[in-house]
């Protein structure tokens, strides 16, 4: 099993390198630093000096891959690729347009992101799996039929409307919780309640339907018939046999996003004014802060790959076939 995990880790490395190369290509090859400078400084009436200055301030004035002018290892290290891309592997993301250190910013903003994303994730999973089990239990009845119809309707609503509608109804009309903002201390829950609730509700449609499909597929299998032939009640069949087997496909889709919870949610955070990584990303996108976007792309991929490995690890918990692989 250790070998299995080691192997997975070993496979992750080339993927990470690939991601690094792709982002580098996107940010420095598709557009030259000159283009970016011209864009940032206003397209027209830019002097070449201003461009050079802009590039020098950000360290974009070096060659892309190979610096023949630099001595020794400088041939490779004193390049944009090494300084801007390769150094991301050691957690050096450089500075944002406003001069702040991106790595430090990321660390401080992870907390608020997680405070929203983690409860949403756990509660959402609980609610949707329960609903899906309910629909499965009542399969081929009117409850099931209308439940699925409702799910399809719910998943046809854009996530934007969940947030806008929720904010409008609960905060503006009924004034139950603050409309947006984030604070520490004993009142923090007030700020979290609405975004978490909206996050859960907006995921109900698609997730419930997806889990229901998984459960129904499992219910058609032979071992379920065996379990029934033993005289087990339907609830025992569902919880002991079906749920445990369905965990494999469910975990495939679920565990992989756990590390990404650190990244927060773009929409929720920006609507509710939560100082997390999601709103950081959105602000960077809107301000065209390339350094921050590049850093987020890389971190997102690292977290995704971590999620893949976590998924592999979680398989060993639910699937004995992998647990006993030598």
């Amino acid at each position, binding site marked *: 099993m250790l070998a299995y995990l080691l192997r997975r880790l070993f496979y992750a490395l080339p993927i990470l390198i690939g*991601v690094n190369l792709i982002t580098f290509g996107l940010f420095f090859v598709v557009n030259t630093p000159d*283009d970016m400078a011209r864009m940032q400084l206003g397209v027209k009436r830019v002097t070449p000096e201003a461009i050079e200055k802009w590039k020098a301030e950000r360290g974009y004035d070096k060659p892309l891959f190979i610096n023949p002018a630099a001595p020794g290892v400088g041939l490779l290290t004193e390049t944009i690729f090494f300084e801007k891309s390769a150094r991301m592997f050691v957690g050096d993301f450089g500075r944002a347009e406003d001069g702040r250190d991106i790595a430090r910013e990321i660390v401080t903003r992870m907390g608020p992101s997680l405070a929203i994303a983690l409860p949403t994730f756990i509660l959402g999973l609980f609610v949707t799996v329960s609903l899906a089990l309910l629909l499965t239990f009542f399969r081929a009845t009117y409850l099931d039929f209308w439940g699925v119809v409702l799910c399809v309707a719910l998943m046809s609503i854009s996530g934007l409307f969940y947030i806008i509608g929720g904010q409008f109804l609960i905060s503006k009309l009924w004034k139950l919780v603050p409309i947006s903002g984030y604070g520490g201390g004993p009142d923090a829950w007030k700020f979290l309640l609405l975004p978490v609730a909206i996050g859960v509700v907006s995921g109900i449609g698609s997730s419930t339907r997806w889990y229901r499909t998984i459960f129904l597929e499992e219910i058609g299998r032979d071992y379920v018939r065996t379990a029934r032939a033993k005289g087990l009640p339907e609830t025992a069949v569902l919880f002991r046999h079906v749920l445990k087997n369905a965990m494999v496909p469910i975990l495939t889709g679920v565990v992989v996003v756990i590390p990404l919870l650190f990244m927060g949610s773009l929409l929720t955070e920006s609507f509710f004014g939560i100082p997390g990584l999601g709103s950081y990303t959105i602000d960077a996108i809107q301000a065209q802060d390339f350094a921050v976007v590049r850093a987020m792309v890389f971190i997102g991929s690292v977290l995704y790959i971590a999620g893949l490995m976590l998924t592999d690890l979680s398989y060993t918990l639910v699937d004995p076939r992998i647990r006993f692989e030598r």
Partner: protein
Amino acid sequence: MSFQPVLLWSDLLIWLLVAGAVALGVLSARNPPLRAAWARVGRSRPGMAAATVLLAFLAVGLLDSLHYRPALPGGEGGRTVYSVEVLSALDALLTPLRTRNEKTYSAPLATRAHAREAIEVRAPDGSVRQVRDYPRLRHGGAHLGDEAARDADVAARLLRACALAAGLWLALTAAVAARRAARDGRGFAAAWRGLWRDGEGFAWNAVLGALAALLLLACALAALVPEYHVFGTDKVGQDVLYQVLKSVRTALVIGLVTTLVMLPLAVLLGIVAGYFRGWADDAIQYLYTTLNSIPGVLLIAAAVLMMQVVIDTHPQWFATAAERADLRLLALCLILGMTSWTGLCRLLRGEALKLRELEYIQAAQAFGVSDLAIIGRHLLPNLMHIVIIALVMDFSSLVLAEAVLSYVGIGVDPTMISFGTMINNARMELAREPVVWWSLAAAFFFMFALVLAANLLADAVRDAFDPRMTGAAS
């Protein structure tokens, strides 16, 4: 000529798609297994009702994809000069909606503006006085002598619309029943009754039901539109109904062209990886795992930002604003396609892996049939259902994605009307007192109808094409 036709790139792709759909239809009609699958879709009531609604959206979108530049009046020296503004057939149809703008916000069916402003009132004695009041709209309900007569006028127009809708619907239904009666050689009454029964092979009842709702809506709108802003106006006084209708094309382009862009890549790489295995498989798997491991929104954000830089630093590439917005839309489709082909590719690879072990492919290999022929004759036709399912399944998620991306600022050009830009422009207005809700409500309603219809059709198509479902039946 009084206009000059303009073919935007997205128009070209849309009409190519239409041609592709027709070709698929012809192919399906000739191929019994495909025909049987489509017949199963035809039997699904939710599916056919959804298809009817989608066709209505498609009609709007296609009308909006016939672009032209109108001739300017008074061309010099016999030479016609064309406007720089690019219009579409839909714009021409909706000229009253497009041109009759108010100053700013007004509520649905309102006769007065939404906000007070200082207006001059001439008193009976002839003196002019400044009061703060809601000014009359320039166009909304302008035909009314007395504003109090609005409700009665609206009711009367709606009544006429209902009658017209009922008449049209009866005529259409009778036409369908008559055709079926002639085809099956039975009485008209029997054919009429047959339309409403299940098990007739085609869910006519659902189609006609959906058609009734659509006709009712269309007639009501048509009756009110000439004199009122049915869904109100927005900040700059533009009619919201016009915006909603223009948004449909954007949504369709995003939902359909994106899939078209990624399809060849996904199919080619998926089949190559699954059929040939070996190093090609390793390389393709590496490629899509790597792309897949960058969170979608971030990859799109990065790519769109870079595209913006390219567009902004090369203003000389675009003749008109419409052209620039159009190319930006296509670039967005391309980017969305490049980030979303991985899922379909993985699916096709897995299926190709399974199929290549099947005995009919081994039988072909035993004849020494070339790999290319095996792929064309045996693999592709048996992967078609996955492609079709992916096409319809992706549509709704892409439409939803457009709204989010436009909101984040990495979607369509801000000047292009789309559901996303509509929501983005209107969302701050919920904070106003009194609330400006109609833009959001209209965008919500139309988007919901489009996505729900797409989801329902996708379900019907998946059920009909999934071999596991059909395998159980035979």
